[in-house]
């Protein structure tokens, strides 16, 4: 009897030790593998935060929940002086200037933290992300091709992926200057370079990190990070938000 209790205690202790937080940089969780041997990130995911409204700290206001910054460090974006003025002007005129209000494709990383789910589906040569918003679609190619030669201006940029352990690292370039980071006027130029990192931290969570670089707008590269949550509804599915179809229909009295 005593021996059995001791073994139970030792087992519990082993579990605690095994699941203890390891040193920084180490991955705790080892995800399952896909049929092709990749870390399996597949499923329907969504953020639970207020970054869609503003990626910096912000007050609540009518229709806007208060929120903490997803920008790492002191929570502010290191704008060059002219760019900070531009951001403030964007904010003041956001009702007309925000590309979301024209139903344009959101760009990266904004599409990640829009208040709509997205689905990751992996193929041998690429990771696909299907977004409910405007049925936006990304192919993150992992076929060995480098970024195609520019100049190219794509709303969602050109995405090339690699695996660092179980982390999907995505290098994205060839953007337009027509997309914003949020509804608060935070913006970038067409020289934007984004490096995203998708790290599974448990069966139902991922850490999403993005490094933002644009020497024409910011004084230095900066990072944002947030948690992605697996949609746990009994039968989650992507529905549809055809923004521009609703907009055209509303603005077109026959």
């Amino acid at each position, binding site marked *: 009897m005593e021996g059995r209790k001791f073994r139970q205690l030792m087992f519990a202790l082993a579990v605690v030790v095994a699941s203890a937080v390891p040193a920084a940089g180490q991955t705790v969780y080892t995800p399952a593998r896909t*049929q092709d041997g990749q870390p399996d990130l*597949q499923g329907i995911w969504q953020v639970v935060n207020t970054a869609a409204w503003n990626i910096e700290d912000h007050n609540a206001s009518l229709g806007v929940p208060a929120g903490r910054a997803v920008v790492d460090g002191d929570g502010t974006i290191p704008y060059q002086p002219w760019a900070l003025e531009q951001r403030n002007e964007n904010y003041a005129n956001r009702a007309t200037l925000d590309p979301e209000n024209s139903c344009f494709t959101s760009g990266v990383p904004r599409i990640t933290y829009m208040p709509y789910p997205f689905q990751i*589906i992996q193929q041998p040569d690429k990771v696909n992300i299907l977004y409910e918003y405007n*049925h936006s679609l990304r*192919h993150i*190619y992992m076929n060995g091709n480098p970024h195609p030669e520019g100049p190219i201006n*794509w*709303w969602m940029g050109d995405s090339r992926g690699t695996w660092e352990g179980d982390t999907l690292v995505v290098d994205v370039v060839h953007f337009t200057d027509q997309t914003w980071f949020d509804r608060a006027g935070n913006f970038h130029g067409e020289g934007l370079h984004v490096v995203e990192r998708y790290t599974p931290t448990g069966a139902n969570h991922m850490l999403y990190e993005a490094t933002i670089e644009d020497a024409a707008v910011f004084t230095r590269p900066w990072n944002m990070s947030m948690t992605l949550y697996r949609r746990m509804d009994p*039968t989650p599915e992507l529905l549809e938000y055809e923004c521009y*179809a609703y907009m055209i229909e509303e603005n077109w009295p026959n």
Partner: protein
Amino acid sequence: MRDSLTALAAALAVVLATPAAAAGQGMFEVGNPPGPGAKSWLAERATLPPYDPARMSDGRPDLRGRWGGSSSGDVIEDTEYVDVTTPAWESHVSNPAGGKLPYQPWALAARDAHRAGLARGWPGETGDRLHLDPQTFCVKSAPRYAQRGFDLAQTPDHVAMMLNWGHVHRSIPIAADSAHPTSAATFWMGSPRGHWEGDTLVVEVTNINGKMWLDSVGNFYSDNARVVERFRLVSANQIDYEVRIEDPTVFTEPVTLSYDLQRDGTGPRLGGGAGGGTPGPYASESWEHACHEGNTHHVQEVHVLGFKWYKGAVRPE
């Protein structure tokens, strides 16, 4: 110079006729024999030996890959050559046997009105402007998405179809234990539910909003339609694609459309929506096609010209 002017004029005509729909679509010559439709495909299919497909680890047929479009032109019934956008083509309707959609009388009148109001300079038009093909506003529907071709990804619980055209995608839950939404919720692409019947992937689509046409010349269904798609590999590079449309509001009997989908790069079909046209090592990639973002002028122009937004057909009381 003269040749290039002619080419320019032809290109301009295409742009004016179907600004958004023409993107990526070839131009067609007069005098070619009709392209292959349902009759040709069913005749070819009958000659194919039994095929045992490669399989996924769950034992299901491996349908993954880039599949070319179901039709190069975009007219469901038999059509004569009309212009560079609309070649002669055999009907895609395999049932009813005559190849014509079995419209109820009111619906046939509505279809004819759609066609007469296209204002494309075609025979039989009234000169009135009624609707443009809704696809010119960058929307898609089931089953019309398949006309452009797609890249198919497959997991045990989902099949995804990803078009390069307008970055449209579908995510189809497989054998999900969940009912369709009530009719209060409708969608451009409908609500899909998939399951396997032997080696055939069957996708049932309901909750269609009825605001999309079945082709570019006014053929249509309603928000009462139920669509059942069947996908079966019949050779390494061909999918037999059958679409059954039940719509008791519009048709007198169920309709069946029959197509073959050809694996990209293995036949004469255009890669269509799966991509194509990208250079060298990028040939198998799908690059961005932002449809709506470049369409603002088109929307404004056709609005000013007096075309009406198509809100879906309603059967008269």
